[in-house]
Every structure is written in C-alpha cells, then in structure tokens.
C-alpha cells in the first residue's frame, strides 16, 4: 500500500506549510540596493552604446585593410607557387615521382594519357606536341593535337606552328 508522502502533499500546492511561509514577512531589497543594481546595469549598457559608434568605423577600416591585403596576396603573393603550377606537367610529375626530367616522349605520352581534358596547361601541351613533330612522330603528334583541340577549341596562338 502506498502511503501518502509529505513531499507529494506539499508539491500538490496549498499546503499548510506553504501558506504559513507566505504569511511571513517578505522582505525586499532596500531602495539603496535597487539604485545600485539598476545604476550598474545602466552604466554597463551606456558603456556598450558609447563603444559601438567608435567601433563601427574601426571595423570598416579593418575590413578594407583586410580586403586590400587579400587582393595583394592573390596578385603578387604566391609567385613561386604559381610558377610551379604553370610548369609543364612532365616537370611536376618528375619532381614528385623522382623521374628524370629528360624522360622519353613515350613516357610523357603515357603520363598524359591519364589526364582529364584541360588538366594540362595549353602551352606545355603544345610544347610537347612540337617536340613530337621534331622527333618525326607525326602520328602521335596528330593524335595529341586532336586531343588538344578537343580540350582547347578556342586556342589559336601557336597551332600553325605545330599543325600537321
């Protein structure tokens, strides 16, 4: 059998204990204390408001400075990295794989065959096609040229030089 608990009765509300407690004097903070707390709150709020107008132009200046720095970094910053990226794929692959830079054209073609279209810089590709022609391997050069035209249909700067 479940005996009624003091706590259950009490939590149901309106217990004699709660009634008696509510009858007791209910002191509130003295006015001086109210003034101190509210004054402190106003002071903090005022400080925040005073700071905001000062900080706004500062934040704008910081944003402009950051943007300019970012643009300069993009334009002038990573020159060395840019040069590496622009280098012919053969050089990059050779550097990564430890392959000698004077690898044969066959080896180059083998490396290029796995390239997705436009993965190679146009200039590097054309240089390789020209090298194939110089070596008398026109068939390979033609095949590479067709692939080149598929990847760069609008490119015309040097095609006359290497066209079959």
């Amino acid at each position: 059998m479940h005996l009624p608990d003091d706590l259950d009765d009490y939590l149901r509300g309106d217990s004699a204990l709660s009634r008696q407690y509510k009858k007791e004097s209910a002191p509130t903070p003295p006015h001086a204390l109210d003034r101190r707390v509210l004054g402190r709150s106003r002071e903090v709020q005022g400080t925040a408001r005073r700071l905001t107008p000062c900080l706004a132009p500062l934040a704008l200046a910081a944003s402009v400075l950051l943007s300019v720095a970012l643009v300069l970094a993009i334009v002038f910053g990573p020159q060395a990295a840019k040069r590496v990226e622009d280098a012919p794929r053969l050089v990059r692959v050779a550097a990564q794989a430890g392959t000698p830079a004077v690898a044969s054209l066959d080896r180059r073609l083998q490396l290029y065959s796995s390239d997705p279209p436009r993965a190679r810089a146009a200039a590097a590709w054309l240089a390789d096609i020209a090298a194939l022609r110089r070596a008398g391997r026109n068939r390979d050069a033609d095949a590479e040229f067709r692939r080149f035209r598929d990847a760069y249909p609008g490119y015309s700067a040097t095609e006359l030089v290497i066209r079959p």
Partner: protein
Amino acid sequence: MLGEMELLDEDARLMMRYRDGDPDAFLALYARHKGPLYRYLLRQVRNAGAAADLFQEVWSRLVATRSRYEARAKFATYLFQIAHNCTIDFFRRDLKMRHTARSDDADSAPEPEVPEHQRPDRVAEFVEQQSALLAALGGLPQEQREAFLLHEETGLTIEEIARVTDVGLETAKSRLRYAIRKLKKSLLPVPIPEAQPLRTNYLKGTS
C-alpha cells in the same frame, strides 16, 4: 510549428530582449525577480549585509554574461543558478575566514577577526526577528533550506531544483522531503506542560 520565441517563458523573452540591447527588459526582469532573489539570499546566508552584497553580485554576473544567454530553460533556473553559485562561493569564503579566525585564536592573537555577520550580537538580533517557522528554516542544513526556498520563492519543480543545485533528481527530492518534515514540526503548537502538584512532602520532614 511553434517558433523558439513562442516556447519561451515571458522572462526568457525579456532576457533575450535585454541581451539584444533593450534596457527596459532588464527593468522588467529586475522588478519580477528582485523580491524572491533577495529573500532566497537573505534566508540562505541569514545576514542582511551579506545578502545585499550577494544580491548585487548575482545581478552583476547576469549583466556581464548577458551576451552569452541562450534560452534553454526557464529564466528563473538561469538566475538562481547564478545565485546558487554565488552563495556557495560565499559559504566557502566564510568557512575559510572562520578557520583563519580560529587558528589566530589558537595562536592567542589579541583580536581574532570574525566576519561581521558571525558576530554573536548580530546573530542574536537576526534570530529575535524571526517566527518559529523562519527560525526552523534557519536551523536546517543549507542544502535542505535551499531546496525549500527555491520551491517557495520561485515555484521551481524538483527537476529544476536539481538542475539549479547541480545534483541528481533523487537528491533534490530527498533534500526537500527532509526540509518539509522538519519545518512542519515547527508549525505544531508547542505543548504546554501540565501543572505539577506542589510537592510538599519534602517540607513534611522525613521523620
């Protein structure tokens, strides 16, 4: 589907407005909670001066941390959690000071420093102003007193009391149960001792 704001209690909405820069929202919150908070502190530490200091400290912390406020629960649990932490800090400081005073006394220091609110005259003054119920409340262990005050002053549930005081649900329940049992006894009428018949036999002599 209800939005976040619709699920919040009115106080939490006020606190969010205050967080977002509305000073009037703070006035409204202060007006609503100043009484319960003051009584909670006063009856916890049992000294008006210490309660006033803690009262200011609680509101200062609320103001200082307003930008981090997130309405995850009832606002009262947030406010009284700050109050609970301030009170615990107070009791720790107080205990340390008393230990220091005691060790100074052991070293036969001429005037051991006793906190203002611990001075016998101040304690006596406070006790005289209390009813039997408040005296019984003051006699409870601090944790039980706190559980009772949180429920009476703010209407917090057992779950909310557990959250504020950072204990398990059963612990909070047990504290409140002990508190009300003891306090109920203070409401019982004090039994008047029955008149004893005058013992005269010792006047009659023993012979």
